């Protein structure tokens, strides 16, 4: 067919851009407004076809659900459109640069997604007979081997479901080990710069938390650690590289001091991406460390989980690791799910065996990179962060002197007197098309901006980012506050009122009638 183009204008008339008409639909071209499913669906519609049931004698014993549940249904095309439109209101790594410090937002390879969906790995039940899941157990054993080799640690527990869950696993093992030797210590040392989950975890395990200040150079104060150590201190929780993006060069001295005082050493491995293949945590005196498979090993963050946080252990803590774990017997691989006689394990941390779906993806990532590629990961991650630091240090204010590891930390001194805050600056970055860095963390730095580029960003992307950041810093200093205080201008929403959300929490949709009655 030949298109008849006769009469169709092909040149573009210049139209004044500030005259934008309102639309009847509320949509704006490709940007669609999307109502809640409760406003577009109803309880009678469905998007699935199920076989007809007929009548039969039920055995629910008078517990039948009779009242309406209020779960709207949509047909398949409506469902696809609803979620497609929602997805278009999200920023992901696939969309653009996502330098969210401490979160290691690296590319998520699609091969990992593909192999995780093989029926032999996805469609198997955790309680099938072991003889029917030998491949799954082998995969868990191989993943364990990689994690132990990459960390130089002799044992690993795969079960924890996230980083914070890994912390819990590690601190419980520490407490179990101390109690096994009849040592009821009460205090865990946690640096000021730590992730908030560290003190929360210590408290969860019944420990009092003692804060350790940072030095002016952004490191843990070794003298303060030594002064705080004593017969009541169960151990220390330290992040390395730390949340300021710096390697704790005194870590061995700290580990020795903690051990001498009878304590144990937990390392938060959230930032392992910076050192993989460059140093073994096992050489640093660490007793337990979690690894975020969703950070270093690229399993998708998925909008906030699921994560996976295996924990590697030293010889001292290995006997106390949680159940279950894989053991090799003459009949093949076996999953030890229950404590045996004289078992020192502190118990079970999750139903079943942990995040198998994440194990598959992480192992696919490791096999793809190999020992050479993983070392290159750390190299490029550190190179990228230092490149950003060096290109921005004259325009913004680095929190500390010298080079960084995998993330560059700035404070808000360069914004002093401009009327622009770290938050405003972050919102202006959204208009530039970037996901903002981590803001106001770590707490030890005023108005912190923590930038973690990861190794999967090209030099061209970094250069574009650097140019935007320089221009924004210059605009702030030039008094162009409008672009900051009103930002974001180009996101589908303006700034959202968090105070209002917290003051009168609306956590669930209610029908309009109920809403009116409540008011």
């Amino acid at each position, binding site marked *: 067919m030949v298109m008849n183009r006769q009469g169709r204008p092909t040149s573009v008339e210049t139209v004044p851009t500030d005259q934008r008409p309102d639309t009847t639909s509320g949509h704006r071209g490709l940007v669609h407004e999307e109502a809640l499913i409760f406003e577009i669906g109803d309880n009678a519609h*469905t998007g699935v076809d199920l076989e007809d049931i007929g009548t039969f004698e039920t055995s629910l014993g008078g517990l039948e659900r009779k009242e309406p549940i209020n779960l709207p249904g949509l047909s398949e095309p409506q469902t696809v459109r609803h979620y497609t439109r929602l997805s278009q209101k999200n920023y992901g790594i696939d969309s653009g640069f996502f330098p969210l410090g401490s979160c290691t937002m690296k590319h998520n390879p699609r091969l990992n997604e593909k192999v995780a969906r093989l029926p032999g790995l996805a469609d198997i039940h955790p309680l099938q007979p072991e003889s029917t899941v030998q491949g799954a157990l082998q995969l868990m054993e191989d993943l364990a081997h990689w994690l132990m080799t990459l960390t130089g640690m002799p044992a690993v527990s795969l079960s924890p479901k996230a980083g914070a869950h890994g912390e819990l696993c590690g601190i419980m093992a520490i407490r179990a080990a101390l109690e096994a030797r009849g040592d009821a210590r009460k205090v865990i040392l946690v640096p000021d710069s730590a992730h908030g989950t560290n003190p929360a975890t210590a408290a969860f395990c019944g420990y009092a938390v003692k804060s350790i200040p940072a030095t002016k150079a952004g490191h843990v104060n070794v003298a303060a650690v030594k002064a705080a150590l004593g017969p009541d201190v169960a151990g220390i929780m330290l992040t390395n590289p730390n949340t300021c993006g710096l390697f704790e060069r005194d870590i061995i001295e700290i580990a020795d001091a903690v051990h001498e005082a009878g304590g144990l050493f937990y390392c938060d491995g959230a930032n392992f991406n910076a050192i993989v293949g*460059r140093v073994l945590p096992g050489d640093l005196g660490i007793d337990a460390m979690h690894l975020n498979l969703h950070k270093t090993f690229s399993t998708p963050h998925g909008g906030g989980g699921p994560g996976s946080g295996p924990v590697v252990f030293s010889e001292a803590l290995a006997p106390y690791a949680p159940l279950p774990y894989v053991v090799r017997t003459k009949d093949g691989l076996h999953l030890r799910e229950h404590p045996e006689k004289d078992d020192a394990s502190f118990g079970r941390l999750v139903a079943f065996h942990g995040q198998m779906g994440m194990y598959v993806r992480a192992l696919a990532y490791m096999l793809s990179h190999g020992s*050479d590629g993983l070392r290159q990961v750390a190299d490029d991650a550190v190179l990228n962060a230092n490149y950003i630091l060096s290109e921005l240090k004259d325009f913004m204010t680095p929190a500390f002197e010298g*080079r960084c590891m995998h993330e560059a930390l700035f404070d808000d001194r360069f914004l002093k007197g401009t009327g622009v805050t770290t938050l405003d600056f972050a919102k202006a970055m959204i208009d530039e098309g970037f996901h903002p860095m981590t803001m106001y963390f770590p707490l030890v730095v005023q108005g912190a901006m923590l930038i973690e580029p990861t190794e999967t960003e090209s*030099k061209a992307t970094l250069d574009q980012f650097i140019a935007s950041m320089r221009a924004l810093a210059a605009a702030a200093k030039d008094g162009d506050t409008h672009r900051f205080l009103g930002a974001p201008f180009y996101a589908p929403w303006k700034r959202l009122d968090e105070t209002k959300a917290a003051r009168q929490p*609306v956590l669930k949709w209610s029908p309009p009638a109920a809403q009116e009655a409540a008011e």
Partner: protein
Amino acid sequence: MRYLPHNDADRQAMLSAIGARSIDELFQVIPEAVRLKDLLDLPLHKSELEVDRIFRDYARQNIPAAEHAFFVGCGAYRHHIPATVDYIIQRGEFLTAYTPYQPEIAQGTLQYLFEFQTQAANLLGCDVANASMYDGSTACGEAILMARRITRGRNKAIVSGGLHAHYRAVSKTMMKYSDKDLVCFDPSPDDPEGDLARLLDAIDDATSCVVIQTPDMFGHLHDLRPIAEAVHAKGALLVAVVTEIVSLGAVMSPGEMGADIVVAEGQGLGNGLNFGGPYLGLFGTRQKYVRQMPGRLAGETTDADGKRGFVLTLSTREQHIRREKATSNICTNSGLCALAFTVHMTLLGEAGLRKLATLNHKRAVTLKNALETLPGVEVLNSRFFNEISVRLNQPAAPLLEKLAQRKILAGVPASRLYPDDADMKNILILAATETVHDQDIDKLISALSEEL
């Protein structure tokens, strides 16, 4: 390496900008003595084709559920997942996003979490539900801790014998280093009513909550109404646990029956078996307890133009603000699993969910009726949803191995969960979801009649 964009020229240009001679120089901060010189003893990088092949080999050594007559449940359930679900969760804007810390560019995630919370709350029969937890078992432990916070001064939790053995073990672990007591009743698969009566007798002034699963680990459904009344009369809270979320399409919700906190495993909707994880913890409670609830919450608000939008809210409960005073150390939810759940739930709608649940129940009734015709098999349930328990005339575990050879995965032997309990040896727990065909049931029955 296909995931790393730099070539050597890029690296050199960047090093020059930094003023470093080599990348090694950037790592000099690591003490010389421990700095690795050589590559670790692991294989070198592999092509996509090679990696794909390796995983097909792993997969080949497992027997996927679809290739068997499949009756395995007991906390994880195989349901048909519409193709749309997997398509949606693989959209990069969902898959590769993070926790919505910048709400202006994360409304996709925040809106589906708000919708998810509403669906979960309605399904559980609760005023509010959070944005999800790691799984049902950890949600159960968190519920017990929350009950303790609400009933200040009361330290004891009483756990029914029908609670899934793993949930019980996980809860024990979570209480291990606190001043909380966990009193666990032994499982009594033959006498579910007696189990609950003993449990009610045990409530005292120190009891903060009673934990009951329905349908329980052996498939028994429980009427929580009289229990809730008795528990409340003693000033304690009722924590209800549901491990098969589809049951709530047919059975009265725990919230309707008076439970104060309801936790559930949401895997059964939208999420595959995945050998045990990742799964999806659901957590609901009464409005008045919302500030004691763990986990993330999405809440409605407006933007600077007055347009409706959503944000993470009530974060003053959480550890990044509260540090050691937080309600929990939990940091993540199960975002993508919650998305899978909510997409599946939207496709079903109430009409579809009710039909799906009825279909499951019908399969289980068919299975029960068929099993009752066999000598050497005693069905233990009178009131159930899609799972039942039987007492066999011989140990269940070895029999299961024999049936597996005949392409039948006939269920979970109770001895796998309670290996030291002699009474469990002959008990087999079987689930029948909509994925079970009538032919599968015929196959099971004829195999059993030969083996028993």
